[in-house]
């Protein structure tokens, strides 16, 4: 980067970079854009029309798709997913912030040992506990309910969030905490009145990723949800794809798929900085 012709060459280089990034971005986004547009096309045109501007617009797909599966409409599936996500968020916020507070701010016997254990579970593939958990939940008679999916959230099993919150809480200044203790605040008071409010950004990140991962999770929903009335959106979308992989109602499938990505879209574009924070704090300091 020598001086002199520096400026023009930078402008040219930046312009070319912009063009390249935009072009590649369009290619990457095209499938999703096509899905959204196609969900408004009549069923017979979905197959023949690769363009983004529909030749005819219809809401037919939304009406047929919304009817759902086995007499249960997508309204119910969306409600199920939302309730499940809300409870999962509450569970993770409570249990993970409690564990993180202990690891980040309290001194106790065995802290480094338990912290190492927690970090190990972070890398542990979930499949190793799958079968025993299923058998365990089956003996509790929980299979078919939301409990196998939600109870673990209240037991801080998502070590990722414990780690995220530990990283954040460690970076908070000690002074406020000390002042509160001098004022007669106990550890519980410090946690509730000082640490939690200060950790707000990390708690938002936790809530956000809990929502997305619970909303998008399919495996656990496939294992544990057995009756159509309890199906979530992701579990219900699978019913469009038959066992041989054939799809009976493409229009309806694309329409309901489009609806199912709206929450993630809205959250992402309104809370973008919390996303970046969540991805980078755990990624870089790890």
């Amino acid at each position, binding site marked *: 980067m020598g001086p002199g012709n520096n400026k023009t060459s930078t402008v040219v280089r930046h312009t070319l*970079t912009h063009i390249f*990034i935009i072009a590649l*971005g369009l290619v*990457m*986004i095209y*499938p*999703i854009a*096509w*899905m959204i547009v196609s969900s408004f096309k009549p069923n017979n045109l979905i*197959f023949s029309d*690769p363009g983004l501007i529909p030749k005819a617009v219809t809401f037919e797909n939304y009406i047929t798709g919304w009817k759902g599966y086995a007499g249960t409409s997508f309204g119910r599936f969306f409600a199920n997913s939302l309730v499940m996500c809300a409870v999962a968020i509450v569970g993770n916020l*409570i*249990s993970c912030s*409690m564990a993180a507070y*202990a*690891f980040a701010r309290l*001194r*106790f016997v065995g802290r480094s040992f*338990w912290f190492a254990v*927690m970090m190990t579970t972070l*890398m*542990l*593939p*979930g*499949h*190793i*506990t*799958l*079968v*025993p*958990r299923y*058998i365990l939940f089956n003996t509790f008679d929980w299979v078919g309910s939301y409990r196998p999916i939600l109870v673990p959230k209240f*037991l*801080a*099993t998502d070590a990722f969030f414990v780690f995220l919150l530990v990283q954040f809480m460690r970076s908070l200044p000690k002074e406020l905490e000390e002042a509160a203790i001098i004022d007669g605040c*106990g*550890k519980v008071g410090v*946690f509730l009145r000082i640490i939690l409010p200060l950790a707000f950004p990390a708690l938002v990140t936790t809530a956000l990723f809990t929502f*997305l991962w619970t909303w998008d999770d*399919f*495996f656990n929903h496939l*294992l544990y949800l057995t009756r159509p009335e309890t199906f979530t959106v992701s579990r219900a979308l*699978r019913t*469009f*794809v038959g066992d*041989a*992989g*054939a799809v009976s109602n493409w229009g309806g*499938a*694309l329409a309901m*798929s489009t609806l*199912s*990505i709206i929450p993630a*879209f809205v959250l*992402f574009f309104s809370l973008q900085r919390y996303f*970046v924070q969540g*991805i*980078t704090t755990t*990624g*870089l300091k790890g």
Partner: protein
Amino acid sequence: MSNATRFFRRNAVAYMFLTPWLIGFFVLTLYPMFYSLRLSFTDYDFTKPDATQWIGLGNYQKMFGSLFGQSEFVASTGKAMRVDRYYIKSLSVTFTYVFVSVPLKLIFALAIAILMNQRLRGVSFYRAVYYVPTLLGGSVAIAVLWRKLFEKEGLVNEFLGALGFTNLPGWITDPRYSLWTLILLSVWQFGSSMIIFLAGLKQIPQEYYEAASVDGAGKVRQFFAITIPLLSPVILFNLVMQMIGAFQSFTQAYIIGGGRGGVLNSTLFYTLHMYIQGWTYHQMGYASAMAWVLLIIIGLLTAVIFLSSKWWVSYGTGE
């Protein structure tokens, strides 16, 4: 308050905060791990748990027996067992998927991150757009869409047809290509790695590049002498996390294969095979053994990556 009481109280409060996590760890992680290890030496069938027999290494022989040309064998307890003909296939499908998709994904992520690391206007917008596939890619919705895009009369073939290609295959239904559609789907989701690389690149002091270019080092030289070494801890992190994640992929293969391993089991991912054995055929003893082998494979590969990092990851430069 005596010192002993204070010590006791301090620990009691801390362990109170830790209680939910401790219960979760013991009941939902540690105990299940031992339980699944024990199950892996039995022929536990979910529908008839009372008939469970100890079969020693039978499940492991069932997995790898075909490598030694076996089709049937007698377990240590005298029980006749059949070798799993599809296990090695699922292993090779998964290895191909992991070893192709992870490096490609990281290369893409790094290339785009470097491109965006110039002081461009609108970078945060671009970053958001490039993250969208990652945001949505794991969902059933996108898997359904992928089926549609890559089928014989799908969008991809419409485009290729318009470009003059003929005799196009059904990418999903042709066993030669179906795994590649899943690899492409994975590479498409390079967003998280890209964001992590971008944050890592921002921490490399600009002066290093300026000093290097004063010394006459070109862009390529700067990339290999500055960017790669200083970014190597981040590369290591991305590599390990993406590898662990890739081995566990399930949803996309399940949806695209219609709940099975696709045509000729060409997309029979390890976890999908494990699910079919454990939940479709109720062979949960066998599924547990499969899970342990997966854990060992992931553990070994992680160890190899960490050990090799001595040679290619540099710490402690700069700050």
